[in-house]
């Protein structure tokens, strides 16, 4: 087997193990977990804003109480 072929085999195995690791990690996480809030990195990060202050958003209008979750992160 050439060095190039050996390298390809190693990379292929690494990818397979990586995929298995991702799945195993997710499944292992099933037991005794505490959900956390996570903002995808392509979204505006949480936290205060320079002008908007602690909320991190300008509340342009608000009426009544907030009974349900109103985040729109996807």
């Amino acid at each position, binding site marked *: 087997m050439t060095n190039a072929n050996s390298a390809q085999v190693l*990379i292929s195995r*690494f*990818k397979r193990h*990586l*995929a298995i*690791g*991702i*799945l195993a*990690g*997710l499944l*292992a*996480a*099933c037991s*005794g*977990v*505490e*959900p*956390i*809030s*996570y903002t*995808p*990195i*392509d979204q*505006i*990060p949480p*936290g*205060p*804003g*320079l*002008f*908007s202050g602690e*909320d*991190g*958003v*300008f*509340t*342009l*209008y*608000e*009426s*009544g*109480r*907030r*009974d*349900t*979750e*109103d985040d*729109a992160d*996807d």
Partner: protein
Amino acid sequence: METTHRSLRRPGGAVRGFAATAAVMLALAGQTTAPASAQEVTSGNDNIRLTLSGQINRGLLHVDDGSNTALLNVDNDGSSTRVRFVGVGNYNEEIAVGTVFEVQLESNSTGNIKIDGSAPGEADGFTKRNLEIYGNHSRFGRIWLGHGSTASDGTSEADLSGTGVIGYSSVADMAGGIEFGGLGVGPQINEVFSNLDGLSRDDRIRYDTPNLSGFTVSASYADSRKSDIALRFAGDVGAGLKLVGAVAYSINGNIDSQVNGSLSLLHESGFNVTAAAGAQDLQAGAVNPNRDPSFWYAKLGYLWGGGLGDTAIGVDYASAEEVQDVVAATGDEFTSYGVFVVQSIDRIATDLYLGARNHKLDRVGQNYDDIFAVLGGARIKF
């Protein structure tokens, strides 16, 4: 005029300038029943909220393609300049509806700009991200309709490292438009690398389950017979470990199907590790179906808090094969490695960042020089 609902208009300042826009947004959402003016925003609907947020992310990009070097003023496509309106109306304690209007405004996007400073296809740099409505039930989940993230969008990009603004699995975001071999010679970086991040954003209908012990399942259908399903997790798994991850399967019409995923672990000590991988199975609709596109990515990092805010450092490595849909790409091997530092300054809602990345393409019959890029800048959330 109904006066039972309070106005949050504040005298002077930026909020007044947004008032007219707020009125338009409320009208579009069909929620305005009382006259609104630029002076006062009111609504006859109870339990509604309209917010505005956004960020500006600018930097200087130094690139060296082996033939030329350049220093370019750019907008960091990894976390682009944008503005976002979110409107939410509560029907009752369980049901809410919402609107999301988010656009990005990039001048000289790092994803497009070439070494001569031109940014073809950018036009005015104004592009849509989210133009959508949703309905949410606290027990049954959420349905989205419109242009936004498909179920699989972001599933290659789980990342708790704190360096995501400058380096994450989409490694082509730093200097995506730069071409191997010099201007107009070889392929662009973003043509030979992809993190196979599902179906990205599209016009779709999407469903998300409620969060079940940190897990969420999503599915969506987009035009041109695109569909996908994804499983996400975000939780504290004990032993001082936070974990986020996702896996997805998507079908892109008769062009390809793909499996991809990512995982990121952050220990309370600050050490973190992130990995992602994906592979495509091409169908007859691809230009060159005789390829096996795939990628993998790994990052090690360390994150710690300080007086200013968090400091994060990281190193990463990425590899992709046969991504570009052209005949010449058969046998392509792309590799990249980078090093990054991000300093958050909480008091002014700013992330300062600096990163360097090398890009290498091995293509049959070609001998391209590596492309080296350094990007430094600031993201200010306003």
